């Protein structure tokens, strides 16, 4: 940071959607921060998207509503957008651009960090293998999250993903270690009531002191949504790699982010890709998701749980589709379970955590975790097949073993999957519940678990 300021230009050539084209610009840099001053003296922030031929295209974060060609001034600040970071950001609530939203002053900065982040050197990356306990049985037991992983939640509109996000943010912890743990929560384009719920939920549970919230509400300008995940990840990286904390970043809703990207792309008259999203959507998403990870020789980690709502519950939609290519598994929220009133309504058969195998077992969770989890998957899958069969031949046409599998399916949904929003289950409780489900099957049906574990944990009913 220097005392030297930037030049203010007063020739605005064009205002197009969220973009302002400034004329006669002699020196501007790509991504440079721009202060737009309206005729009324109001200041808005933006950044340079393109420079050339004496023109600069500026993307205005707070939108261009109320701006006019005459009287509007654009000041090129001479630096990229930076986020002031320090340990003081913990317990604070910011807006989508990283400005305090809790009535308190700006945090005293330890340093100012470019929000675009520095790419992680792939050679320096450390393979994620340490368990994070979310306290949500279905996640901890069947799609375990590990430190440094990026594990998205694919949901649909109106479903309970925000409750789940808040629950994870409140309960997540590193088990058995004294390492510092923090949660960075970025809400993108959420309703005011949801933003309030997130804030209150963390405040009332006492989890706010180890959390940082970035809230971009639905009525905030859409363009701000491009910045929100970046400022959140910048803070997360600082907490992780400068302060050595294990940071869980929950971002909801990435669909709103992609919509904002589409809006800018349309205004720039770029050739649209699938469903009108820009052709570089994959690359752009990767600049966010790839900011998760662990680095060799550094203590902290950044773990990401981005949440996205699939338009029309369509998992082949470009946003979940491209997200799935980058991330390490997915947690799918199921409409059928949601309609049955199950919370969290996670469809385990479409979900998986690709890094789970390295984060569980003896020394991490428990020796039997991997095998009991496979058995539960298998049993629930069989239960679904039996349910489908019962729909055709009726329950009377089922064999005794089929009925047992149906019972397993019901118990799984009622006792294991279903969990109160404030119920924080330990990994031991989760594994015991999994054994309770497995124990509903006759012993000869337990084919995926070693005998020594069956003898130790199986209790036939």
């Amino acid at each position: 940071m220097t005392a030297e300021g930037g030049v203010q230009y007063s020739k605005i050539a064009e205002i197009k959607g969220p973009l302002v084209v400034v004329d006669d610009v002699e020196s501007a840099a790509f991504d440079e921060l721009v202060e737009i001053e309206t005729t009324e003296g109001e200041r808005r922030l933006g950044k340079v998207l393109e420079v050339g031929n004496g023109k600069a295209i500026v993307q205005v974060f707070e939108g261009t509503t109320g701006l006019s060609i005459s009287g509007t001034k654009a000041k090129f600040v001479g630096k990229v957008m930076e986020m002031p970071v320090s340990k003081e950001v913990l317990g604070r609530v910011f807006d989508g651009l990283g400005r305090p939203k809790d009535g308190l002053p700006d945090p005293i900065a330890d340093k100012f960090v470019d929000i675009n982040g520095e790419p992680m050197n792939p050679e320096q990356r450390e393979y994620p293998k340490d368990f994070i306990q979310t306290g949500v049985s279905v996640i901890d037991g069947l799609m375990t999250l590990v430190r440094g992983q990026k594990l998205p939640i694919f949901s649909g509109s109106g479903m309970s993903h925000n409750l789940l996000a808040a629950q994870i943010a409140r309960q997540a912890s590193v088990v058995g270690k004294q390492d510092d743990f923090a949660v960075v929560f970025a809400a993108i384009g959420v309703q005011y009531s949801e933003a309030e719920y997130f804030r209150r939920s963390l405040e009332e549970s006492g989890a706010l002191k180890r959390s940082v919230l970035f809230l971009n509400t639905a009525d905030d300008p859409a363009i701000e949504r491009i910045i929100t995940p970046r400022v959140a990840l910048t803070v997360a990286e600082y907490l992780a790699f400068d302060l050595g904390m294990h940071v869980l970043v929950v971002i909801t809703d990435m669909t709103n982010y992609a919509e904002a990207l589409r809006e800018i792309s349309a205004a720039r008259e770029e050739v649209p890709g699938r469903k009108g999203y820009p052709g570089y959507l994959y690359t752009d998403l990767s600049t966010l998701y790839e900011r998760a990870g662990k680095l060799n020789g550094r203590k902290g980690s950044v773990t990401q749980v981005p949440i996205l709502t699939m338009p029309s519950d369509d998992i082949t939609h470009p946003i979940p589709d491209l997200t799935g290519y980058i991330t390490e598994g997915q947690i799918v929220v199921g409409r059928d379970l949601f309609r049955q009133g199950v919370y969290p309504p996670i469809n385990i058969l479409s979900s998986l955590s690709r890094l789970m195998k390295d984060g569980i077992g003896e020394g991490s969770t428990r020796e039997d975790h991997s095998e009991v989890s496979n058995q539960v998957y298998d049993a629930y899958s069989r239960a679904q097949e039996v349910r489908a069969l019962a729909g055709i031949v009726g329950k009377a046409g089922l064999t005794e073993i089929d009925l047992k599998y149906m019972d397993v399916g019901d118990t799984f949904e009622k006792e294991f999957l279903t969990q109160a929003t404030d119920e924080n289950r330990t990994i031991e409780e989760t594994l015991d519940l999994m054994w309770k489900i497995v124990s509903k099957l006759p012993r000869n049906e337990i084919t995926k678990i070693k005998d020594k574990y069956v003898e130790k944990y199986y209790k036939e009913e």
Partner: protein
Amino acid sequence: MNKCHPLANLALEQTIDKILNQTQKEIESSIKSALNDTTQTLDDAIPKLGKEYDKIIADGKKEADKIEKQIIGGADIEARNKQLLALEASVDKVFVKALDQITNNDRSGDYANLIKSLLDESTRILGTSEVIVSANSKDRDVVQSTLSGFPGSELSSDTIECIGGVIIKSKDGAMTFDNTLDARIERLKPLIRKDIAAKFGVGN
């Protein structure tokens, strides 16, 4: 009225005794069995009770931990927020005092050099010395005397409200560069705040 034969009475008594004995045995057996059942039920209930007891204790502990976290977390945040507000108030006071001192500073001596360096920087950034320079009423004389070193520049007849320094505008009005002390302080404010806070022992 018929009288019963004594033998018949004896047989009746024997039958009654037999029934009574049998009933007594049955009752005793039932009581014994009930006692066994009860003992068994009690024996079975003990581990269940133990488990239930442990669960209640564990749930209670969990709830207590949760409440403890809520109370401590809330108190920590409240205390921290109060500290932040107090710190900010102190930082503001320091700022006001410092700005007061700068405003009332003597314009002689090194101040002309400061204006010259501000003009140098501004014309370099704008890329021209064909500029109109604005200053506050206090600085006009110093600025006017310094402008001789910047051919093509002229002093605006309008004065500006600031504590010192200059605003430079290209003659076509397209470019402006604010190099007032106010703008410079504003740009450096986050760093100055950090330094002031460090003096109060925060952020070290």
